[in-house]
């Protein structure tokens, strides 16, 4: 049946190029090939998010009066609504965790070096987009925790010099977090960010397919002149391994959804007193805690402003890492960037843990 369909299509649109690509595409085999799976696993979770997100859209109502009740309806009245919502929430968190793991593996293996600068660029932008998805999606259930965490988060945007107040009003749709903010975040979460992410994912995948997998410098250095790495066929050897990893992820997601259901909390009340221990989602904790540690004033400047500017600079530096790492560009080891990546990883892990338990 499948063969007949392919033949039918082949007669109408020439599939020889694709057939050739599938037959020829290989994945280098070496000791560090395990890191290759992270990208595919992130992509799988992105697919899960799209699928569960569409299902949630069928019942979700994006207004301050109805958002909380609609999510409550989904988890209590809709058949398997609890499962869809729990998978969406857990998958979002796993997706960001895997995106960070993918980012650090690429950084440490220097896979961004020529000719993969654009792949890195699209990947970094995708990581920022995933964080944007997390930030905007967190508010949508309109519960107490998400409401106040969004207030704190958007408040930090207000600390950006010169354009801070404009950004704060742009994000909130006013001076405070209200139903207008919810509408904006909803639009961002289900239309703007998905459109951008789809385009970037497509571009990212296209680049990966066109350029093939990057071989780590350490592996490349060990090769004798003229020697090439053995290749594993992408279809079916590699893709089956990918599918295997996706199934494992699916099992983890199902177990998390059933044993650790995502709490809905109580409905947001803008007039309520800010509950103690308000903190953002774990992936913003390191930044949040750092901003909290910065003194209110440093050399006449506002501490929070300086912190936000510093994080902005770090983000911009990350974008242009392939162009800064001259040694990697020449195919040489660049320990300075390795140290930077390790320090960044240690900082993120440490501050996230401290931020979680800090009073």
């Amino acid at each position, binding site marked *: 049946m499948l063969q007949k369909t392919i033949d039918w299509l082949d007669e109408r649109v020439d599939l020889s190029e694709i057939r050739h690509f599938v037959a020829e595409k290989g994945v280098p085999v070496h000791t560090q090939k395990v890191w290759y799976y992270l990208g595919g696993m992130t992509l799988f979770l992105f697919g899960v998010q799209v699928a569960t997100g569409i299902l949630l859209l069928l019942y979700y109502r994006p207004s301050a009066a109805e958002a909380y009740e609609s999510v409550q309806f989904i988890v209590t009245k809709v058949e398997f609504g609890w499962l869809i919502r729990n998978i969406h929430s857990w998958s979002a968190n796993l997706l960001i965790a895997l995106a960070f793991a993918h980012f650090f593996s690429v950084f440490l293996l220097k896979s961004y070096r020529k000719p993969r600068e654009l792949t890195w660029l699209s990947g970094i932008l995708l990581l920022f987009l995933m964080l944007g998805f997390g930030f905007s999606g967190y508010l949508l259930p309109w519960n107490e925790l998400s409401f106040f965490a969004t207030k704190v988060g958007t408040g930090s945007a207000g600390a950006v010099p010169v354009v801070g107040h404009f950004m704060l009003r742009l994000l909130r749709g006013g001076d405070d977090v209200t139903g207008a903010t919810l509408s904006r975040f909803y639009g961002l979460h289900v239309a703007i960010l998905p459109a951008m992410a789809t385009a970037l994912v497509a571009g990212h995948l296209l680049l990966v397919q066109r350029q093939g997998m990057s071989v780590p410098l350490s592996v490349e250095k060990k090769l004798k002149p003229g020697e090439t790495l053995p290749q594993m066929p992408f279809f079916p050897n590699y893709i089956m391994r990918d599918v295997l990893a996706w199934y494992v992820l699916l099992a983890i997601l199902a177990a998390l959804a059933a044993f650790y259901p995502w709490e*809905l909390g109580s409905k947001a009340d803008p007039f309520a007193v800010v509950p103690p221990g308000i903190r953002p989602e774990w992936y913003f904790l390191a930044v949040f805690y750092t901003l909290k540690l910065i003194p209110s004033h440093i050399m006449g400047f506002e501490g929070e402003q300086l912190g936000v500017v510093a994080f902005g600079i770090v983000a911009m530096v990350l974008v242009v890492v392939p162009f800064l790492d001259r040694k990697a560009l020449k195919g040489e080891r660049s320990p300075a960037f390795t140290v930077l990546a390790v320090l960044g990883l240690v900082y993120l892990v440490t501050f996230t843990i401290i931020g979680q338990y800090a009073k």
Partner: protein
Amino acid sequence: MSFIESDRGDRRGRRRDVYRSQLRVLSELCGCFFSVLFFVTPAAAQSAPAANSCLTCHTTQQDARLATPAALFAQQDVHRERGFACVDCHGGNPAATVKAQAHDAAKGYKGKPAGSQVIAACARCHSDAELMRRYAPKQRVDQAAEYATSTHGKRLASGDTNVATCASCHGAHGIRLVSDAKSPVFPTSVATTCASCHADATRMAGYKLPDGSPLPTHQLADYQTSVHYNALTKGNDLSAPTCNDCHGNHGAVPPGVGAIANVCGSCHAVFAEKFATSVHKQIFDKGCVECHSNHGVQRPSDAMLGVTGKGICQPCHTAEDKGDKGAAAAETMRTQFEQLKTAIEQSHALIARVKNAGIEVSDQELALREANTKLTLARTEMHAFEPALVAPIIKEGTTIVAGVDAAGQKGMGELKFRRGGLAISLGAILIVVVALALKVRHIDQRHRI
């Protein structure tokens, strides 16, 4: 400045008085002019600082008895802030710089008022509705009349100057508004203000209760153990009762027999209403106090109801007397309370388990709150001491709990279903994973990887 009574001094003083009176006339004329110009009210015009030699001299006195009142009055005092001066209570001539003229009886100098003079001095303004309307239009003007009906007032009239007068509670100088948290009659301070006399065994010696027993001095100590004191000081509930809420303030008397239920009922209206229909209404001389005490009112508990253990029905009713209808009624109601209480607790635990599993139970939580309300209603109804009135309310509560339990069991079933479904899904996934792993191994061997 000191008072030196010499002719020269008197002459100089008189000259100064003449100059000052001329200046005063001039300034009053200017004042009138500006009042007319800017429509300044007479009351506001009064607030202009007048010459006050009382403060000038008294604040420099070495004797604290003379200096302290002036110092207190010069700091924060509601009367000074509204334009009143020493002369308004003490009389005399504040313009004079010589003691003899300042303390001239012909100028109305009264010195330090004592006993009934204090009441008269305060009442001169505070019982004057027309005057008070200009300063505090909402304030009552019958304090002096009320005071006359109080135990304090009656004893003062009979010549006992040991009793409290206005200044004993409000202070004489440095008087603050009752709403000022630093005032000695602010709700949180009333008990200690009353206790400054009533906890003083020496001062209270000789005073007796209507039954002839000595007036106790442990009211404050008792009150500080009470639920009312706790609510007032720890719960910051300024509406919680303190001494004057039950005894009255200016007309303070101990609530008499038959009036206690009315006093408690001014806050606990529903309890008083139920109690009024009970058989105990006729029997209890001290009404609510018979079971709940007066100054040391403790948080009531279900254990109080009954003739066993901590039950307080025991002195009158006994478990041994099988024909005691009161004992049987108390035990019946107590059993009903305990049954509903236990059912609510068990239901709470079930719902918490279901909620922890991620199943929405807000309707059930609301229903349990309703069941708790029924329990409270039943406890209120109990004050009529009629089990037949309590039973229907308990039944309503039990029905609600039964509904919640059914929903809880359904939730547990749903949880079981989810876990079962998950186990099957995980099994299926595991089979696929193993199959894929075998397939990968197989094709790897084929490709010699």
